[in-house]
Each structure stands twice: as structure tokens, then as C-alpha cells.
């Protein structure tokens, strides 16, 4: 088609250049940000660490299109929604039977989206409050980070692809904190995630040019050290004067300062990796690019062993994002209440699949990256992908759509469709914590035992 025509389409239909080019069958390959370079130099014989990440996708999934057919086991065919994962199927466990009953309404009534998000990694009922006395529980990633976080430069990494927040109230009388934060350091301290891939990169590796990054990072840490010492004293003096919730706030401050100090101390004894890539250039306008970059940051953080524990919120629970790139102009949440209308279900399934495609690219990259022990990075990782909502239409929280990719260094046997008996998803989290090498964690949230 003519260039003039494509420009007219682009202008009139407010499609992005990329979409038009794709529509016209002339998709240009964009330069990939990160090449699949080998893992950073370490002795090849070294034992590799295990990593884990939790990737959250909102509004559940169309169950019929999500679950593979058959009785489970190693010989299974991927479902339509999971089909994009074909290249990493041998590293994949599709797991049914996992529940998040803490997200059920019970006496709290509406607010299933806030609950699905706020309970997913915490496994506890969250307090229904629009803003005072917010209370969830510590999330599993932080439980493990408390034990193992000191082994890497960053105890954990929190990422999100939500840039803009809706103002006004969030879901049905629940404070917004429950939807926008996956990781909770304690019952009342959510860990705000980073949405800017550039900042995520600079935090991990330093800012400035490739040559200056490490030096910049070291200087930053050096200069901050004495400031942190000072304000820590200041906060301690203040703490004696405060009470109740005021004190809670100051405790958050103290914990945060101590954690940075601890990191600086650890950092002194470790080399700062300097990956052979440019930092991302801020937040891309396209959501697809943004998601890809955040997955890149996750990959890079694991590859360089900067952290072993991460959470990535692809979009807050209840997200109403339209997907114009694939011809869906209505919002995801609106569509998810489809009342079994075939047209609408088809659109929701397209969105489900779109997200799985993004996951697939990331997993393929993890699989193509060799870790220090010669295995693939994916083999040494556990990437849990899923939602706290099962059927978005009915707001159910049992039989959650979940896949676990990677073998956790051999702790899991992937390449299977696991039809597990009904149990809390927290049971699986406990088993993942075991695979990470965490000790003495007997219970998390509503867990009833190890995953079995």
C-alpha cells in the first residue's frame, strides 16, 4: 500500500506507526535493547543460585481457554491461551487446583479486585478500609528476602508497568495500596514498585555512560552513607516522642534507612556488574514496549545476580486498559464481566493471550541465557505467573490461572500439567521458598502445608 495512504490511516485512526506498519505487513524489526549475552563472568563450575519472581496479571483469565485438555502429566498439549509458551513448554508447569480464598467476599462484600491483588502474595484477609489503618500481611517474596536478601546487592526488586494512577477512590471501599502493591514488607508497609525502566536500571547498575556507571554508583553510595547515619539518629530521637500510628510511620522510615545502609555495606564487599547494554530511555509510550523493558530489567537483575527475588505487576488488579494494538478498544475490566457472551469472551481471551505472549518472550530469553553452572537461567529460576482472580466474570478465587516456569535449580520437575488437589496457593509459595533455600518457614498466610 502506498506510503501516503498509510500515513493517512495512521493520522485518522490514531493508530501507532508500529500498528500501521504491522497492519500493512511491513513490520520493521526494532532494535532489541538487550542482547542475549552470556552470563557475567564467574567461574563456570560454580553452583548457581536459585531465583524467584512473581508476575501478576489482572482480572483472571477465561478458564476454558486457559486450561489444557487431558488428565495432566508430562504429555500435554498447551491450551489456546498458553500456546505462545510452546518454545519453553519443557520448562513449564501448568498448575491447577490453587486457591486464594482470602480474596473471597465473606463479610466484606464487594471489592474482589482489591482483595485479589492484596491477598495474592500475602495470603491473608486484608482489612477493608478506604485509607485508615491499612492492613495486609507480609508477602512471600519479603519473607524469603528477609532470610536471603543479604546474599545479593538488592534483597528484592519491585517493578510495575502501571504509570498513571486513577485519582479518586479505588475498589469498593478498599484503599488503593492493595491494588498497586504486590510486595508487602509488613502488614502495613507496602513496597511501592518502580515503573520507570531507566530508574530500575540505574538503581541496579548506576547512572551515566557505560564507563562511568560503576564509579557513579560507588560515589553515590559513599556520599549517601553519612547522610543516612545522620538522619537515622534524627529519626531515633524523634521516635521516642511519637505514639501509635505516627510511630508506625516513623518505623517505616527507620526500616527503610537501615535497609539502604545494609545494602551499602553489602555492596562494598561485592562487585557491581556493568552489563554491556545501554540504560533504557525512560518510560516508553507503548505499553507493549514498557512490558518488554520491565521483563528485560528482571532478566538483567537475575542474570547479573543483583537480586534473586522480584515481583512484577503487569497491571494493577481491576485494570481497565484497552488493547488497541490488537483491535480491542474497550477496557480489560469492563470486558472481563462478559456474562458468557461469546464475542466478548473472545476479546478477553485475546488479552489473556497477549499477556502470555509477553511472558513467553521473557521466558525464552531466560532459557537462552546460560547461567554460571552451565544450565539455563530459566532452569535455575522459578517464575510464577498468575492472577488472584480466576474467572474474572464471576470474581472467583479458586483454581487460579497459574503457571510456574523454571525448575528452581532442580527442585521442580517442569514440563508437566499438574492437576493438584485443591489447596491454598500459599502452599506452592512455601515450596518455592524451600527451593530458594529458606529455612524454618512453617506457614505463610493461609497455607496448610507444602505444595503437593
Amino acid at each position: 500500500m502506498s506510503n501516503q495512504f498509510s500515513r493517512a490511516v495512521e493520522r485518522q485512526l490514531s493508530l501507532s506507526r508500529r500498528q500501521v506498519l504491522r497492519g500493512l505487513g511491513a513490520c520493521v524489526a526494532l532494535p532489541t535493547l538487550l542482547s542475549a549475552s552470556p552470563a557475567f563472568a564467574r567461574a563456570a563450575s560454580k553452583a548457581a543460585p536459585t531465583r524467584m519472581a512473581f508476575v501478576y496479571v489482572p482480572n483472571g483469565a477465561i478458564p476454558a481457554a486457559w486450561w489444557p485438555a487431558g488428565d495432566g502429566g508430562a504429555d500435554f498439549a498447551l491450551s489456546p491461551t498458553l500456546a505462545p509458551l510452546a518454545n519453553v513448554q519443557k520448562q513449564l508447569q501448568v498448575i491447577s487446583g490453587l486457591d486464594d480464598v482470602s480474596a473471597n467476599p465473606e463479610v466484606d462484600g464487594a471489592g474482589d479486585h482489591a482483595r485479589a491483588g492484596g491477598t495474592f502474595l500475602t495470603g491473608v484477609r486484608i482489612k477493608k478500609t478506604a485509607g485508615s489503618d491499612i492492613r495486609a500481611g507480609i508477602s512471600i517474596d519479603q519473607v524469603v528476602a528477609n532470610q536471603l536478601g543479604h546474599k545479593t546487592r538488592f534483597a528484592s526488586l519491585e517493578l510495575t508497568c502501571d504509570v498513571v494512577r486513577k485519582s479518586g477512590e479505588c475498589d469498593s471501599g478498599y484503599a488503593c495500596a492493595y491494588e498497586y502493591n504486590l510486595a508487602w514488607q509488613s502488614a502495613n508497609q507496602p513496597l511501592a514498585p518502580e515503573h520507570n525502566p531507566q530508574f530500575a536500571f540505574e538503581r541496579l547498575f548506576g547512572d551515566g555512560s557505560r564507563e562511568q556507571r560503576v564509579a557513579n554508583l560507588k560515589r553515590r553510595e559513599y556520599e549517601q552513607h553519612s547522610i543516612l547515619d545522620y538522619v537515622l539518629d534524627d529519626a531515633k530521637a524523634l521516635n521516642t516522642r511519637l505514639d501509635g500510628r505516627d510511630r508506625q510511620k516513623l518505623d517505616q522510615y527507620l526500616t527503610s534507612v537501615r535497609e539502604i545502609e545494609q545494602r551499602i555495606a553489602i555492596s562494598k564487599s561485592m562487585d557491581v556488574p556493568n552489563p554491556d547494554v545501554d540504560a533504557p530511555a525512560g518510560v516508553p509510550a507503548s505499553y507493549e514496549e514498557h512490558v518488554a523493558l520491565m521483563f528485560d530489567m528482571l532478566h538483567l537483575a537475575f542474570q547479573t545476580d543483583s537480586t534473586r527475588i522480584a515481583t512484577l505487576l503487569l497491571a494493577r488488579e481491576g485494570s481497565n486498559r484497552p488493547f488497541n494494538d490488537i483491535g480491542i478498544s474497550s477496557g480489560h475490566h469492563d470486558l472481563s464481566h462478559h456474562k458468557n457472551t461469546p464475542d466478548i469472551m473472545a476479546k478477553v481471551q485475546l488479552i489473556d493471550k497477549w499477556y502470555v505472549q509477553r511472558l513467553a518472550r521473557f521466558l525464552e530469553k531466560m532459557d537462552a541465557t546460560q547461567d554460571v553452572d552451565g544450565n539455563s537461567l530459566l532452569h535455575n529460576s522459578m517464575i510464577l505467573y498468575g492472577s488472584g482472580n480466576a474467572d474474572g466474570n464471576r470474581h472467583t478465587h479458586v483454581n487460579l490461572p497459574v503457571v510456574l516456569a523454571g525448575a528452581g535449580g532442580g527442585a521442580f520437575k517442569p514440563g508437566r500439567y499438574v492437576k493438584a488437589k485443591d489447596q491454598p496457593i500459599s502452599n506452592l509459595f512455601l515450596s518455592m521458598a524451600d527451593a530458594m533455600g529458606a529455612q524454618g518457614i512453617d506457614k505463610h498466610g493461609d497455607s496448610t502445608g507444602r505444595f503437593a
Partner: protein
Amino acid sequence: MAVPLALLAAGLLSHSVPSKAVAEKSPLDVYHSTIVPILEDHCYECHGDGYDKGKVAFDRLETDEQILEPGLWMRVLLNTRAGLMPAERKPRLSASEQQQLERWIKYDVFGIDAHDPDPGRVTIRRLNRVEYRNTVRDLLGVDYNTDHEFPPDDSGFGFDNIGDALTLSPMLMEKYVAAAQAIIAEAVPTAARAPAAQVLPGLAFEGHNATEKWGKRRLVFNEPAQVAKTVKTALAGSYRVKLELEVNGSYVPDPGRARVVAKVDGKTVLDQEFGYFDEKVFTFDSTHPWSAGDHEVRIELTPVVPEGKKETIIDLFVNKVTIEGPLEKEHWVATRDYEKFFPRAVPAGRNERRAYAAGLLGAFARKAYRRPLDDEDTGARLAALAEATYTQPGKTFEQGVAHAMAAVLASPRFLFRLESPVGNARFADVDEYSLASRLSYFLWSTMPDAELMQLASRGELRHQLGPQVTRMLADPRAESLARNFTGQWLQARDVEGIASNPRDILLRDAGEESTLKSLFAAFKAQDEKTAKELFQRINDVVKGKPELEKSTRAAMRRETELYFTYVMREDRPVTEFIDSNYTFLNEELAKFYGVPGVVGEELRKVTLPAGSPRGGVLTQGSALLVTSNPDRTSPVKRGLFVLANFLGTPPPPPPANVPALEASESEFHGREPALRDVLKVHRENPLCSSCHNRMDPIGLAFENFNGVGMWRESERKQPIVAEGSLVTGETFNSVAELKRILVTAHREDFYRTLTAKLLTYATGRGMEYYDVETIDQIVKKLDDDGGRFSALLMGVVESAPFQKMRTQATMTVSN
């Protein structure tokens, strides 16, 4: 200290409020003697005698605790006042019955002492990112872009300045430390004398193929361009030339590249190829031995076109070029702002230096903490921190002091708003410094200015509240209240970011939704002929319609802010938020709305033509757009918006398994129904009707405004019908009539709702049952004063929650 409000409140209410001390009957006695008969007459039909609609049965309240449970009676108060209960067609409470019920609820059940209401408890508030930015601007004159640097703040109760909801994480703390360093580095000079500097703004550069954008010189990646500027130097010597360039591709990553060469007097100082960046600033320094006279700085851009790629939309901005020199020490000049931070020469002796630093840093900390230092050592401790830096080799005294100033900005005393009570009464006045901060963060979203601080230090602020509020409202900083309050109360903030597909909306209005589907299919099938035909058809629909540009969205937000500012500054009746004959428009927005006769970019007050459906915030683009789905209007969201933000009676959230409206379309067997018809089907479900009967009629009254706020006469080729009736009985034929009803029959509901929202924003906490009395007192003043904005604002400022705090003694008891 005298509290005018308490006296006023006592005077106002003494004839109507039974003081607790003289009350003759216990709350339970009154319940049985007075309240039960009212309930029997009006409520038992659904909530007694075996019925328990909504799980409420008054005759099953057994224990004293159940009878006096505040949550239940809060609902009774809300629903009877709003006319929602007794439900439709059931006999209403008489005025005296309503009054008896309200009194009993407020003074007996809630135990409110009208002479000394509970101010509630506010958790110490962290500065949110708006407040942080403004505070740094006022403290140091630095504009630090916190929207870019910090993560968004969690909000609670609909606002992002709620103490309990504002948390702090290690990542944010790291950002605070980094921000403190960056801000101080920009603000504070680190030497007394430095080379003279001359800044050449980007627009000073002129030449070939160069345009202007955002006040900067703009070159584009796909056109060869060059610009130059000649500077004159009076002295010979070494000069440093600092180029600041920016690559800005405001689109998806683009493969375009360009080679940029910079020359100083013909000598190449930069020769580099640039690729895509969303928004990135580059600086390049070079040093030159210059004679006195003319020197030229030239920048050239040559496109480097990747194969098969002819267009790009990446900009290269010349932001500025700074010429520093002569660099030789004998020519140095006094540093800009030096005396602002370092009023005298740095002393030589170690102790003198320490004392000087302690004085400077103590004064800075006092200002930054917005109150006197509670620890005499603060200055000395900061000076020790400074000394640890300036005694290092190669570091100046000023650098050391700057380092300690960064610590001040990272201190919890700066990042949190700490408050103190006066005395230890149960509900004590906050001290004058706390009051100064409460006022300035409420009205200005920033720290108190010098005048507020001086009044506070003299203990005179509380006596001068009226004049101070008047002064503060006249100050440009008061626009922060308009921006941040309306931005959240009316969600006007969201209008710039919310997903919207105007093309789909226009196609739906025209009944051409399916054409788009077909177009995508034709694209997929590479069927150019069909695609062109369908494209033409779509083009016919959207042709000539104003587009929803970024600038249109910005104008919508500004419209709402300016409207609020006008009501605030001109002290108009707050009912004009709903109903008026004016709004604020520029040419672009006026065209979008179809209002004739507005020319130019500046938004200004426009008196609307007679019969215009606009006027008031509800029919502004911001409200109409944020209450729409990406591809259509949502009468449900619009109805809910009015109920929640104007009438204070949001229905409970929908149950699970609630179908999307689209799902009801299947009942129309292939016909494309208008939303009004779809909603009617939806409401036939009794599970849905009780709430949708409240929301839908209100939302449907706005159906003449499509999903982006344009006026339309039809939807899916069917004419719009805007008539309807409220559950409270009033009927209307148009959105204009609905607005009249809202400001007459429901005026008090609106006053109460607006007061509660503003009080939430002002105090940084959610409203509790014990705030009912405070809100009622403000509403009474507002009503007595013809609804004027000043009555509302002063009511909030003089209220107990704003003036007082619970002391620690109370907290121990109540927690």
C-alpha cells in the same frame, strides 16, 4: 488560648443542643420512649416485624451495644436525610420526627459534645510528591520534577494526602536521599567566586531548518539543519563551552538516527551519532583559549537514514549553551546566590568555621522543618556532618555545608509534617506552627511563607485566620487547591491520561461500529481495495469533527481548575459548581464543545449562550471523559459520579457476577440498541434495579454528551432521550433541568458532600461518625450565607478537626 470557633459553636447551638450534663434521660431511655415509635411507624414495614431488608431489623437489636452501634445509625442518618429511606412511596418522617432522630443519633448514640467535638486523629503526613515539589521550590528555588522522579503516592478516601495511606519504602527513601543531593547541588553554590557564566538560550541559535518548540530550538532528525550563535567576550582567557542538547522522540521507539556536529570557531568539539530517546539530555564541555571579541558556536545535524526508513519524528533540541570564563582565577566573579546561603566570608579558624556552619545550618533546618528546632544541638550536629566533609582534601567549606543541607532534606522532620498540641486537654489546639502548616498545605500545597511563620512565632496566627485566609487565596499558590482538590474530587487529573478511543466513540454515535472491525480484517487479509473503501467510510464519519488532542485534554483539565478558582476567588455560591451560565474556554475547547465565538489559545471566562447545556463542572469535558469507557459513555459511571461526589449517597458496589452492559445486548438479537435500552434490560433484574434505579436516570440525563464530551443528538442512529426521574421523585426533561433539581431540592445533600470532601482533603483523614456535627455546623453556616465559598472555606478552617488534635493521653485511651 481563646478559640473563637468553640464560642461561636456554643452560641449557635445553645438553644437547640441539649448539653450532656443536663440531659435528663439516658440514650437508651430516649431510644425506647421516642425513637422506637418513629421506627415502628416508618421503618418496621421492611426492617422489623419479621422483615430484615438489607439485613437490618430494628426490633432485633437486643443488647445495649447493638442498639447504640454507631455504624448502623450512621446509615440511618445518611439514608433518611437523603430521602432514600423510607423507601419509595412509603410515608416520610415528619420534620420534627427527623429532628428527634438526628439529635438522638448525634448526641446520644455518637456521644458528640457539640461544644467540644472530637477532632479525630491524623497520622503524621508524609509530604506527597506535589507537596514535596512545591516545598522544595519555596525553600530553595529549585523545581524538582517529582512526577518524573518519585513513584505515585497511594491515595485513601479519594485523596493522595491522607496520612495513613502515605507509606514509605526503602526505594522511596533512596529516592529522597538522591533528590536531596540533586536539589542541594542545584541550589547551593560551593565556592564564593567562580568564573563568570553567560547562558545562551536555545532560541538564540538561528539558522537553517530550525523551528521552535516548548521554548527551545528544535531540529528534526530527518532534515539537514544548522544553527549558530556568535558571542562577544570582553576579556581574553580560557573559556568553557557547555552544550546542552536533548533528544526527544515522543512516540514509540523509532529507528531514526542523526549525526550531530558542534563547532566552536570552526573547530569540531562534538561529532556523534544519536538514536532514539524518549526524553534525554546530553551535555558536552570543551575549553578554548579565546581572545577578546567575537566567537561562534555552531551546531549541525545530518540525517542518517536507516535503510527503508524515510521518516522519523525525533527532535533534537538545543536547550542552551553556557559559556564560562575566563577560567583564570584572577577574573572570577562572585557566585550567583552566594550571599543568600553564605552571608559572610568563611572564617579561618576551626572553631569559628564550626560555629559559622552551625549557625547557617540551624537556620536552614528551622526553615526546612517549618518549626523551631526542638533540639538545641541540631545546628551543631549538622555542623559536625559538614565538617566531616569540608576537612577532606579538595573539599570546600561550602561543599561541606551543602552536604549537611542535603541531610536536612532527607530528615523525617522535613519529609513528615510533625504537629504538636498546646497543653494536654483531651482535644487540644494544635500549636501555631502546626496551624501555619495546616493552612499552607491545605490552601497552597506547600510550606508556610515568612508571614505565616512570623505570625506563628508571635502566637498571633489563630487570631488572624480570616485575613490570612483571604491573603492566601489571593496568592497564585492558591491555585494548588484548585488543581489538587478538583483534580481528585472531580478526577480532573485523570482526563489527561485516561484511555479513550474517540474514533470508536464517533463511529458508535453514527452506528458504524462494525465498519472498523471489517477494516481490521481487511488489513489482516492485505486486501487494499476493501481497506480503502472502508477507510473512506470511516473517514466520512470522523471528517470535520474536532479531534481530542493532548492540548484538548489539557484544556479540559484547566477548564475545571479555572472554574473552581473563579468560584473560590470571586466567592461565588458553591451551587455554581453544578449550575451556571458560564465556563472557561479557549478556541480549541470551544470548538470541541460547539460553542461559537471564542478565539485564541488562552482559556477565559465565557458566558454561554442562552439554552446552552454546558455550565457547571458536570458538563465539562473532564467529568464527562473520566466517567466514560474507552469506547462509549457509561451512564452508570456518570450516575455514580454524581451520587458519590455531589449527593454523598453512592450505592453499594455491585455484587460479583455482574454482567457488563454489552452482555445485555444479546437480548436485542443482532440489533444495535441504544444504551438507554440496554440499561433498561439490565434494570429488569431485581438484583440490579435497587441501585441502578438511582444511578441510571442521572447518568442517562447526560447522554447528549458522548464519551469524549462532545454534544450529540443521536447514538447508534437513534435520537437521544434525556428525560427521567430521580428515586426521590423529581422529574426532568433535560440535563439543565436535572442541574436545577440538584441545586434546589438536593442543595443540602450537595453542601454536606462538598464539605465532607473538602474537610477530608484539609485534614488528611477520612470522615468518621463523630464528624457529623462538625459537617452540620459548616453546612448551616454555608446555607445561612447563601452558599458562598468563603463560608465553606472558613467553616473548614475554623472547625475542630482543623484547629485541634487529640493529645497522646486521648490516644492511649481510645486505641
